[in-house]
């Protein structure tokens, strides 16, 4: 089994934060934790190449890093790609996640990585990837690599993969068919009874956990700031030009409000299931408050209102979709020089 292993500058033994701008570098054979990985994979496994990259370079030049890495991994004729483990290192986790996704989809070989649940890379890539829950303590390297190697061998051998808690990976949100003895109603009643008695029980549907979002500092001078309106209430121009789906939307749109003092019902429609759209249809300002924003703009309370608003439909949407759209919107808003956004949600 030919293995390619990705490491950041620190675990690659190149240096600490001062080496974070290092570009991607390929080395022959195993480096640092790669040696232990090779040993734990056992048998014929050989780390034929180690890719080492600085954390800053990897995140700031992600596309270039991915392209260079994909080329090297293809050249190495790898059967397995391993990244990390990254523990709590955020930039390392982001790079490892992006790389594993790219290798999985472009080269089509099994991939595995490891990181702490709180690593932003885990939040972003837990759905498409097997990410071994590494915790935040690098002293557990052997334990983490043991679980990574064990799951990697199953993936390469196309063996059945067990549940997250059996294999030690971060839950991916996959739903699998299974035959059970009791109906959902019976299981549910048992859980309720256990809960009432204070006995342990295990929920079959755990709520998603969201990493805390740091609050940006306040806008210093709103009178000079450029503001933007965004809605997830599905307001679109008549005819829905971007074909934004009313449920589980994969698209969002940017619509001009240049020279408009207010929104008029005859020009818009709602593409959003679930809520009764008649009130917003009558007067779209009830969802996207353009009329009063124009007043604040005239009065000088805000510097300027952006001449477009963004819209999508926020109904029954998988997180992977909404996260991607959120990132795309944030990127576009940055390009437009926006200082602050008011998001109206139904």
């Amino acid at each position: 089994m030919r293995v390619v292993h990705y490491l950041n500058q620190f675990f690659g033994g190149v240096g600490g934060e001062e080496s974070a701008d290092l570009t991607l570098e390929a080395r022959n054979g195993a480096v640092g934790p790669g040696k232990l990985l090779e040993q734990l994979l056992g048998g014929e496994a050989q780390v034929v190449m180690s890719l080492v990259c600085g954390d800053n370079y990897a995140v700031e030049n992600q596309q270039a890093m991915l392209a260079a890495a994909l080329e090297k991994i293809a050249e190495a004729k790898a059967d397995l790609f391993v990244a990390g483990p990254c523990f709590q290192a955020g930039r390392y986790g982001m790079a490892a996640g992006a790389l594993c996704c790219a290798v999985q989809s472009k080269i089509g070989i099994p991939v595995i990585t490891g990181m702490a649940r709180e690593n932003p890379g885990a939040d972003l890539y837990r759905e498409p990837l097997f990410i071994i829950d590494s915790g935040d303590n690098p002293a557990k390297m052997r334990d983490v690599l043991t679980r990574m190697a064990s799951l990697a061998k199953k993936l390469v051998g196309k063996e059945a993969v067990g549940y997250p808690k059996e294999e030690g990976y971060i839950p991916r949100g996959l739903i699998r068919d299974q035959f059970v003895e009791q109906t959902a109603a019976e299981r549910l009643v048992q859980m309720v009874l256990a809960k009432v008695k204070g006995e342990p029980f295990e929920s079959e549907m755990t709520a998603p956990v969201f990493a805390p979002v740091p609050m940006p500092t306040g806008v210093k001078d709103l009178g000079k700031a450029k503001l933007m309106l965004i809605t997830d209430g599905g307001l679109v121009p008549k005819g829905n030009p971007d074909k934004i789906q009313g449920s589980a939307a994969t698209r969002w749109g940017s619509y001009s409000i240049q020279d408009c003092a207010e929104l008029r019902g005859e020009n818009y429609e709602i593409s959003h299931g679930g809520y009764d759209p008649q009130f917003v249809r009558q007067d779209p300002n009830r969802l996207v408050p353009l009329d009063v924003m124009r007043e604040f703009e005239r009065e000088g309370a805000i510097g300027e209102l952006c001449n477009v608003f963004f819209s999508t439909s926020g109904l029954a949407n998988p997180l992977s979709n909404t996260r991607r759209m959120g990132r795309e919107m944030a990127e576009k808003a940055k390009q437009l020089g926006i200082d602050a956004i008011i998001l109206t949600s139904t």
Partner: protein
Amino acid sequence: MQITSARPIAEMVGANRLVLGNGIVHVVGDAKASAEEEKRIRRQLVQKALEALQRDAD
């Protein structure tokens, strides 16, 4: 910052600047009010949003 009437969802996903809207079907409106009164309500909600945007974390 976010204006929403679905407060539990906003809190669950970690929204940190939040103004409670005036109903899911008209977050910044009020179909029962007169046009004038409705606009006053909307202005008040957006005013609160603008204030929230200027605040730093406590």
